């Protein structure tokens, strides 16, 4: 065991945590406080994963440079000096490596708009998932009030709606999102819940979720199928109402190593195709690697909802629902229940929740131990009212982890604690991942990536993929 430990890097410090009303106070222990834990670089597993330009705040100037470069090719001549402008951003972008890269992209967009159009009035619209305090927490943490000179507003799916006529009938956006002459669609390509959007037109998804009223979000999730649901976002994005307002789109691109680039375009679908290619290429290998795991104990320890906490750039949802190739969109079973049920990964044997946010349904699929104050927070989780009836508790992360390893019968541990670039884990799991990685690169590059692209009507050769 000691020999194994010396082969690996020390634990990577997770990104800083923005405290939230929806989570516990700072936990006393994190991965670095657990004896014997190490980290494993994702580019050591797969050197073909694109190298990041941003992995922590010391790289912040790279984001500004990349955003300026991407916007240089965008036409802003339609924006008059006194026009109203809403710069739209969504909460998950602030869950990517502490959110500072996304925040800097947004600030830079504001500055470039002013420089190019003489318009100093761009408003930042910070859109929440569901909580009424989320937007205010983000605005305060990143001090957007100061940078945007007071022109910043939070929005929730419960705010007043605006009807949008689409080919699916009337759907509803959030009025605060659309109450401007121009909107700027500012997003990120973190694949997130691939089991829901399937990388089918990912770049229009926010129009059916983040920018939409709760009724429309419900339609996307509950009354359409696992692939057809993406038509909700597409239909809104394609509506005359949105097309008349959308000035341009700007995306923060990533790989499991971190933020890799900024992309921008006046044409939403042009960005969309590039985002699709980037995500399928950059994340497919780690997804396949997760599917090969034999057994492990999972620790959730980050300031987002459980599905969305990263380990080496991969959200926990990617491990939880890893029983199928989600990007193969041509072999679905007949019902969503069948699709999701068979997709739950049976290979993790126990779970520890050290910190996460509440408010999103989360199934208990294995013995789960909740640490310290998090247990009290989870008792009041309105989306999981009986979770703590089944969960165990422990006063410290160390004790919880020891018990989870006993219950799970394994010493392999993976931390989902917000990292990109490296995974914090036990040496035993690091050894296993390195072994399991053999052949994955070839499988994805030569077989799956071309298939995934062709299934989405994208010519691999156009993007240099043979």
């Amino acid at each position, binding site marked *: 065991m000691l020999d194994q430990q010396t082969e690996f890097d020390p634990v990577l410090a997770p990104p800083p945590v923005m405290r939230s009303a929806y989570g516990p106070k700072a936990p006393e222990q994190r991965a670095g406080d657990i004896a014997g834990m190490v980290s494993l670089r994702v580019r050591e597993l797969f050197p073909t994963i694109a190298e990041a330009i941003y992995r922590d705040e010391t790289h912040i100037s790279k984001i500004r440079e990349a955003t300026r470069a991407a916007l240089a090719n965008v036409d802003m001549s339609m924006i008059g000096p006194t026009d109203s402008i809403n710069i739209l951003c969504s909460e998950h972008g602030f869950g990517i490596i502490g959110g500072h890269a996304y925040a800097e992209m947004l600030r830079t967009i504001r500055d470039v708009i002013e420089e190019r159009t003489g318009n100093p009035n761009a408003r930042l619209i910070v859109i929440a998932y569901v909580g009424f305090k989320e937007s205010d927490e983000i605005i305060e943490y990143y001090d957007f009030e100061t940078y945007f000179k007071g022109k910043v507003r939070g929005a929730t799916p419960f705010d007043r709606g605006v009807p949008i006529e689409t080919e699916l009938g009337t759907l509803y956006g959030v009025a605060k999102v659309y109450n401007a002459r121009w909107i700027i669609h500012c997003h990120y390509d973190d694949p997130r819940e691939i089991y829901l959007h399937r990388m089918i037109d990912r770049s229009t998804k926010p129009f059916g979720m983040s920018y939409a009223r709760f*009724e429309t979000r419900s339609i996307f999730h509950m*009354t*359409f199928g696992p692939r057809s649901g993406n038509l909700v976002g*597409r239909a809104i994005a394609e509506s005359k109402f949105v097309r008349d307002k959308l000035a341009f789109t700007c995306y923060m691109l990533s790989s499991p190593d971190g933020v890799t680039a900024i992309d921008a375009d006046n044409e939403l679908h042009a960005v969309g195709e590039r985002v699709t290619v980037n995500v399928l290429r950059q994340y497919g290998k780690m997804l396949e690697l997760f599917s090969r795991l034999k057994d492990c104990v999972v620790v959730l320890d980050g300031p987002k909802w459980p599905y969305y906490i990263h380990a080496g750039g991969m959200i926990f949802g990617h491990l939880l629902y890893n029983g199928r190739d989600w990007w193969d969109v041509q072999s679905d079973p*007949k*019902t969503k229940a069948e699709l999701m049920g068979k997709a739950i990964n049976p290979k993790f044997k126990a779970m520890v929740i050290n910190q996460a946010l509440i408010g999103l349904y989360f199934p208990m699929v294995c013995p789960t131990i909740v640490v310290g104050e998090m247990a009290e927070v989870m008792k009041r989780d309105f989306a*999981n009212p009986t979770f703590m009836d089944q969960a165990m508790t422990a006063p410290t992360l160390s004790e919880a982890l020891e018990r989870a390893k006993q219950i799970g019968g394994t010493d392999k541990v993976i931390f989902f604690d917000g990292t990109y670039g490296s995974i914090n884990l036990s040496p035993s799991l690091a050894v296993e991942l390195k072994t399991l990685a053999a052949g994955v690169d070839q499988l994805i590059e030569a077989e799956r990536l071309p298939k995934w692209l062709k299934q989405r009507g994208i010519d691999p050769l156009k993007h240099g993929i043979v």
Partner: protein
Amino acid sequence: MKTVNFEIGVIDENCTGCYLCERICPTAAIEMVGPKSSALAVVDNSKCVACFRCIDICEDDALLSHERKAPVKFGIDPASVDQVALGELLLKADLDPDAVGCVCSTTSNKEIAAAVIAGARTLEEVSLRSGVQSGCLMYCFAPIHRLVTTHWGEMPESSTKNKWYGTSQTLMDVAPEVAQGARDFFVEEEQAAFIEVLRNKIAAYGVKIEALQSGLPPDGE
């Protein structure tokens, strides 16, 4: 089915009478009592489904939760209503009986449909009978609205001040020309699979499918 372990209390001295809690409450369990200029929140905990959204929206820390002495359950057994009527409603609404209609309370579409058949016709009534609308207040809206409007013709405003827009399109509402123009979204494939699954499931409720004006195309089309 929602198991409720908590109830809501009000700290009167913190309440500023902003009405936000009354407006967000899905079951009208909160009422502002008193003259409009000095009204205070009052909670009827027999109607509280513990979504905690009142606590979330309150900017004055005027609401808090206490553990109940014993949990309360909000729910309905689908077997308690006429099974043919239940099957017909789900078929006409184009909803899978067994699919989860409310993720927070893990309530199925057939449970929501049973609440509707049992008499619920507002969002508030469906919530109190089935346990839905007791968490995020978001994702279960479309199945509820779809079932209520299919059964009753409309979903009236209830005594709750919680506002909504009446939309609940489903996969089966996508017009053929739209589906054909969006092949990347597999609409036609999913519609065909859904029809097959729905027919099989609904037959188990004793529904004579061929006798219904369900709008479903005949087999083979």
